[in-house]
């Protein structure tokens, strides 16, 4: 499939890896593109390593096999690195974005990334605590993802996400504002090596 982008999300049960993929899916659809968003299911336990996926394309997507060589990997929890092969199938020009307070160069060495592969880091957990009030790193990582890949119009994505969150958290306007700030801050604070 030409011009199809595949994303893999790594998280731990409860961190919102599935929700992140769904949020991306919704944002992509809102911009008139085609998408899939699906989690990898197994025994569902808080804290267990989980993965979820996106496919994004300008034309309809008929593929229904697993995503095995994503061009972008997003890691919601740095403690997964070493426990899970987060770079599995990452192509030579692939991108990995990690929620951590460490610099990107640290992970380039730790993951043994190739020259063409790009690594970005952002302290999404701190951003989430400061904006949302809880360590839910998925929305800031959505901001980092769109900021880095430019796969979507950032402002339109922000508006769409605001709209979605307003529906979901009608009685908690603070949650909506916190998430929006988290997305914006993560996009600004994400750094390469």
């Amino acid at each position, binding site marked *: 499939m030409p011009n199809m982008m595949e994303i893999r999300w790594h998280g731990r049960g409860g961190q919102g890896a599935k929700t992140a993929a769904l949020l991306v*899916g919704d944002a992509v659809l809102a911009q008139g593109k085609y998408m*899939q*968003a699906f989690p990898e299911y197994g025994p569902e336990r808080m804290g267990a390593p989980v993965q979820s996926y996106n496919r994004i394309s300008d034309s309809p997507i008929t*593929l229904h096999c697993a995503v095995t060589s994503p061009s972008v990997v997003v890691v919601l929890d740095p403690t997964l690195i070493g426990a899970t092969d987060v770079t599995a199938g990452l192509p030579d020009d692939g991108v990995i974005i990690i929620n951590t307070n460490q610099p990107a160069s640290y992970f380039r060495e730790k993951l043994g990334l190739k020259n063409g592969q790009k690594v970005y880091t952002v302290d999404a957990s701190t951003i989430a605590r400061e904006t949302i009030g809880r360590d839910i790193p998925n929305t800031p990582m959505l901001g980092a993802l769109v900021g880095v890949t430019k796969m979507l119009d950032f402002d339109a994505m922000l508006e769409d996400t605001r709209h979605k969150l307003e529906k979901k958290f009608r009685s908690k306007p603070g949650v909506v504002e916190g998430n929006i700030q988290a997305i914006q801050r993560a996009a600004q604070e994400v750094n390469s090596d």
Partner: protein
Amino acid sequence: MSTKERIALTGNEAASLAMKQINPDVCAAYPITPATEVMQIFAQYVADGLVNTELVTVESEHSAMSATIGAAAAGARSMTATSSQGLALMWEMLYIAAGLRLPIVMPMVNRTLSSPINIHCDHSDSMGARDAGWIHIFCENAQEVYDSAIQAIRIAEHPDVLLPAMVNYDGFIISHAMEPVETLADADVQKFIGPYKPAYQLLDVDNPITVGAIDLTDYYFEHKRSQIEPTFHACKVIEEIGEEFGKQFGRKYGLFEEYKLDDAEIAIVVLGSTAGTAKVVIDELRAKGVKAGMLKIRIFRPFPHKQIADALSGVKAVAVMDRSEGMASMGGPVFAEVRSALYDYDKRPITVDYVYGLGGRDITLDHIRSVYGDLQRFAAEGKPVVDSISDLVTYLGVRE
């Protein structure tokens, strides 16, 4: 929802939304992975007062189907949803629903059967129920789940049919994957399905009927024989309703979908989500000048044997893809049907079977490429390269 719109839905959400717009009189609910969400979301619609449905929470799937049958016999438009072990527990009631000619519609999320315990997709569950007398519709994606659930009401309730119908879709691969789905306005769905006018109803005291009568050596055979006719009639009705749906809403449906099959020399026969993955491989092969095609079976019961055999008779080599195993039969159930349908044709393709994806094992582009590679060799040699009949069946993607 007032107008047609394109929204992001999982297969289960698409099934629930279709049920909401159908607004059945009675639904029975019992949870089972990966179908649980269908009734969970629907129960929320009931709680929010968005449907008029009487929701019956029951203690097992056997009871779910029993309650659905009772409600349908009383004259209510009745639905439930299930998967895997749930379908297995409904077993005896499935035959009763069909024998009583009750037009129940049931989203059925395909998941394998224990043992070993596994929650993932294959078609073992519904394939085991293929001879229960139900209509079996298979869906490739969430859009087809939505559209087929709506059409299934019309098909099942059609006076020439009056049979229960299950709308099958792949567990997790479709049930839990979010995709764009074009939805219809509530009023358009209601207009399309129309009001339910049961032919007979238990609660019509002015016209009393017996439901579930005993029928021994004297008439059982005749009654079973008369059940077969409407099952075959259903093919014509399914095509007419699929055509009408296409005219009204822009997505036409038939008994099966032919993908680049017209001039194909090699083809696969497949049902469910794998058809979508195969389309990518076919496009690749076509770009290289290989005449590859596909026949995606949508209606497995009634099995449109003549139509399928006609569509395949010009192909040189055909690979049937079975996502369930016949356990020491000759290949999987789809292979048995397709190969048998072709038997009386003077000109018929080489036909082999690939059993794949049991227990959710991923079926990749490379797997499908390898099947077409085999077919190219078989077509060139004019015969499959096998030593014995059992070699006609290949297990794709298993470690041996």
